[in-house]
C-alpha cells in the first residue's frame, strides 16, 4: 500500500470521527428541544458530561475491552488499561492494512461509544437525578457497551456466527435503546403524563432546536455509516452515502404519510423522528443495500415510528424524546432487515440476526436494569415531586436556561400544558 492511499484512507476515518462527534451536538440539541424549558440546562449538562465520560472511560478501559485482540470468537477479553501505540510502522500504515492509524482507530471508536449513553439520556429526561445518572453512564459506557461490542466488532462469538451489523443498528442504537428501556421502566413516567383521563402530551419547548438536532444527526451519520467502511474506499463509501441519505429521506416520507393517516396531523416531531428512524434502520446494512432497498428500509422505519410512539404511550412507558422508538425499535428493524434485503438476505441470516439482537438485548437490558435497580434502592434515581414541578434546572443546577424571559405558567401547573 502506498503512503498516498494510506493518507487518504486515514483522512476519511478521521473526518468521519469528527462527523460522529457532531452527533453529540445533534443529540444535545434534539433532546433539549424536546423537553420543557425548565429542564433544559439539565439535559445539556448531562450531554456535555456524557461526551467527557465517554471519551475518558473509553480511553481507560473501553477500547481495550472492545478490541482485546485475543483469539476470535470469544465472549470477553481485555487488553490492558490505557492506550499505547503499537511499535513502529504497526502503529501507522501496517496497523490496519493502510486503512487508518492506531490513534485514528481509537478516536473513531471513542466517538461511537458515548452515543449509547446519549440515547438513554433523552429517554430519562425531566425526572432522573443527575448523580446516579452519571454513575450509570460510567458503567454503561465503560463495561456494557464494549463487552457486547466486542462480540461482533471485536471479532467475538457473534462475528464468528455470521451476525452482521455494519455500523451498529444493534451494537450502538439498540444497545442504547435497551438501556433506555430498562431505565424508564424503573424510573416511571413524568408527573402528569399519564392520568386517569388518558395520555397527556408534554410538548417539547423548542422545536427549532430539535430540528437543528436532527439535521446535525443526519450530517454526522454520513461519518457514522461512511466511516464504518474503515477505509476511504471510493465505491464502498459512496454507496453507503447513497443508501444512508435515501433511507433517511424515505423515513421522513414514511412517517409523514403514516402520521397523516393515523392522526390526520402534520406533526413535526414525528417526521423528525421518522428521519432518525430511517437512519437507524439503514445502519446495520448500509453497505449491502441497493438504493431501492435502502428506500424500502427507511420507509418502513418511518411507518414504524408513529405506531411505536403510540405503543410505548399505551404501555405507559414515558420517553420524552422517542429514543426507544427511534433507536430500539428501528435498531431492531434495521438489524433484521439485513436478513430480508440486500446481499446477505436469507433464512440463515435472519436467524443470525435474531440471535444477535436477542443476546445483546438480553445482556444489555439485564446490565442496565441491575445497575439502575441498585442505584434506585441505594441513592434513589428520581428527583422529588417538588423538584420535578420546579424543574431540574432550578432543583439540580440553580440555573435557568433562559433567565431573562418570563416563565409561562405552563412550567409549573401540572394540568395545563
Amino acid at each position, binding site marked *: 500500500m502506498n503512503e498516498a492511499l494510506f493518507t487518504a484512507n486515514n483522512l476519511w476515518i478521521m473526518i468521519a470521527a469528527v462527523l460522529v462527534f457532531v452527533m453529540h451536538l445533534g443529540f444535545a440539541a434534539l433532546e433539549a428541544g424536546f423537553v420543557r424549558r425548565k429542564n433544559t440546562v439539565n439535559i445539556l449538562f448531562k450531554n456535555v458530561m456524557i461526551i467527557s465520560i465517554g471519551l475518558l472511560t473509553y480511553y481507560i478501559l473501553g477500547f481495550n475491552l472492545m478490541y482485546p485482540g485475543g483469539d476470535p470468537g470469544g465472549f470477553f477479553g481485555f487488553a490492558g488499561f490505557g492506550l499505547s501505540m503499537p511499535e513502529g510502522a504497526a502503529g501507522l500504515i501496517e496497523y490496519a492494512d493502510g486503512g487508518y492509524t492506531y490513534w485514528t482507530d481509537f478516536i473513531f471508536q471513542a466517538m461511537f461509544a458515548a452515543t449509547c449513553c446519549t440515547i438513554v439520556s433523552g429517554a430519562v429526561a425531566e425526572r432522573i437525578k443527575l448523580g446516579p445518572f452519571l454513575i450509570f453512564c460510567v458503567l454503561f459506557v465503560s463495561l456494557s457497551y464494549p463487552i457486547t461490542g466486542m462480540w461482533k466488532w471485536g471479532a467475538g462469538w457473534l462475528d464468528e456466527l455470521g451476525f452482521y451489523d455494519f455500523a451498529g443498528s444493534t451494537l450502538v442504537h439498540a444497545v442504547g435503546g435497551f438501556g433506555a428501556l430498562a431505565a424508564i421502566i424503573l424510573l416511571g413516567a413524568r408527573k402528569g403524563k399519564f392520568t386517569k383521563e*388518558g*395520555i*397527556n*402530551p408534554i*410538548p417539547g419547548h423548542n422545536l427549532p432546536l430539535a430540528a437543528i438536532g436532527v439535521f446535525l444527526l443526519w450530517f454526522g451519520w454520513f461519518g457514522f455509516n461512511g466511516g464504518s467502511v474503515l477505509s476511504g474506499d471510493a465505491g464502498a463509501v459512496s454507496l453507503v452515502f447513497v443508501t444512508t441519505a435515501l433511507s433517511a429521506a424515505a423515513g421522513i416520507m414514511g412517517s409523514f404519510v403514516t*402520521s397523516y393517516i*393515523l*392522526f390526520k*396531523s402534520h*406533526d413535526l*416531531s*414525528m417526521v423528525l423522528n421518522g428521519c432518525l428512524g430511517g437512519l437507524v434502520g439503514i445502519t446495520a446494512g448500509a453497505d449491502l443495500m441497493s438504493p431501492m432497498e435502502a428506500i424500502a428500509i427507511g420507509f418502513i422505519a418511518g411507518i414504524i415510528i*408513529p405506531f411505536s*410512539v*403510540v405503543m410505548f*404511550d399505551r404501555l405507559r412507558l414515558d420517553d420524552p424524546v*422517542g429514543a426507544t422508538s427511534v433507536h430500539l425499535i428501528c435498531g431492531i428493524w434495521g438489524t433484521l432487515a439485513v436478513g430480508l434485503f440486500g446481499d446477505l438476505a436469507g433464512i440463515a441470516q435472519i436467524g443470525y440476526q435474531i440471535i444477535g439482537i436477542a443476546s445483546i438485548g438480553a445482556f444489555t437490558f439485564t446490565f442496565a436494569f441491575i445497575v439502575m435497580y441498585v442505584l434506585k434502592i441505594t441513592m434513589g434515581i428520581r428527583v422529588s415531586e417538588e423538584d420535578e414541578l420546579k424543574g431540574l434546572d432550578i432543583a439540580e443546577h440553580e440555573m435557568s436556561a433562559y433567565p431573562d424571559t418570563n416563565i409561562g*405558567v405552563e412550567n409549573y401547573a401540572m*394540568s*395545563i*400544558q
Partner: protein
Amino acid sequence: MKKIEAIVRLQCFDEVRDALAMIGVEFFSLKEVKGYGLQKGETMVYRGSIYGKDYIARLQIDILATDEKADQIVKTILTSARTGEVGDGKVFVLDVEQVYRIRNGETGENAL
C-alpha cells in the same frame, strides 16, 4: 372616575383600539391574560395525542375615564369587540377614588 376593564379576543384588539381612538380615547394599558370560560383554547396534537389548553389567550384593556365618558367607552367596546360567538369576553366597571399623573402630580380629571 371609573376604571373600565375589558377582556377581549386577541384578534379584536385592533378594531377596539381604532374604535376607541375614534371617540378620543388614546390612553390605556394592556395586559395579556389567560381566560377561563366557556370557550377553550385550540386543540393541539403532539406525537399522536390530542390535547387542548383549558384557557385561551386574551387581552385585558384598562381604561381610566370620567364618569360621563365611561358609558360611551363601554358602548364602543361592546360593539367593536363583538363577534357574536361564545368567548367574546366581558367589560367591568369599577369606581376609582383618585387618579394622579406622575409627570406633574396633577390629580382628578386633569390627570386622565
